[in-house]
């Protein structure tokens, strides 16, 4: 049986602070571990649902998730606490890193490090995208939409807003009319 614990406001802040400070690149698995397995604030099903919501809404997924979780337990103040807990430490660390970069940007060694860091960082995003793509519904309209979006952004460099204005209604309409085969 999954237990359901209600966090206090303080626990919301410290819980998300803990994720912010150790989560490099992919924070999502850490969030799941904390919310469901360690703290028992949400069940697996509730987590999946809130995450899905965070993904279809604009904005950083994990930030959206933190706002939804905080808001569920303690309304607006809970959302604000979870949000600031998540972002406080990473923000400070990023500021520290960028001021070091400003200071030493002329150093050839730093330029070399960045030349290696950037491709590796880009590779991480590819990896995450491929992971998500592997779980995508295997229907022709889904694959066509994913490929079309990839081509428009990656190859044709189209601006995002007009693209979304066309693609979002199209995608929702297709999903509405092309029901999944009952399994």
């Amino acid at each position: 049986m999954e237990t359901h614990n209600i966090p206090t406001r303080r626990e919301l802040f410290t819980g998300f602070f803990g994720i912010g400070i150790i989560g490099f690149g992919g924070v999502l698995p850490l969030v799941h571990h904390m919310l469901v397995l360690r703290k028992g604030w949400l069940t697996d099903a509730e987590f999946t649902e809130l995450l899905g919501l965070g993904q279809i809404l604009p904005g950083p997924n994990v930030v959206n998730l933190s706002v939804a979780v905080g808001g569920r337990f303690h309304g607006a103040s809970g959302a604000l606490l979870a949000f600031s807990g998540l972002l406080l430490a990473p923000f400070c660390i990023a500021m520290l890193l960028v001021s070091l970069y400003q200071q030493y940007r002329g150093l050839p060694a730093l330029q070399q490090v960045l030349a290696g860091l950037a491709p590796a960082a880009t590779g991480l995003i590819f990896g995450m995208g491929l992971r998500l793509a592997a779980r995508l519904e295997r229907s022709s309209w889904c694959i066509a939409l994913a490929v079309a979006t990839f081509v428009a952004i990656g190859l044709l460099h189209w601006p995002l807003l007009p693209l979304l204005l066309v693609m979002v209604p199209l995608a929702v309409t297709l999903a509405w009319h092309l029901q999944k085969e009952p399994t």
Partner: protein
Amino acid sequence: MSAMLLALFLVFGQLSLMAVGGANAVVPEMLRMVVNEHGWMTAAEFTALFAIAQSAPGPNVLIASLVGWQMASLPGAAISLIGICGPSSILSFYVAKLWQRFRDYRLCHAIQRGFAPLSIGLVLGGAWLLAGIANTGWSAWLLCAISALIAWRTSLHPLWLLGAGAVAGLLGWV
């Protein structure tokens, strides 16, 4: 100064509401606005900031605060972060409340299914665009491909891959 803060807030506030599929989905659009439209920095400078943002812990939105820092130091960084998180957070706070009531409606399912391929296309397209700037030679493409493959197939901590990239760069391999 305050004109710059307002400009930063407007740029990132717009991006916030376009970031379907997470912050990485709008990195190309951010680059287009920051580099081409406003001329705040070069594409290479932007890519360096992106690499730094990826090396810091936490969500990927930090790229916004680094751009803000570059333009208007600490106030700029704070305004940019609030800009990119604020509008979408307020939206998701209210939608999460509504969703509890309407989650079983057919339209909600259609929205959920329809958005999935879009966000994947956005993430991969964005990665492709960035790779074109970050990867300056065949060795960089190789490093990028290895990093992608490992991140996709294993659950190795991303910090190891970033560390390996940094070392490869320091040794002059990239």
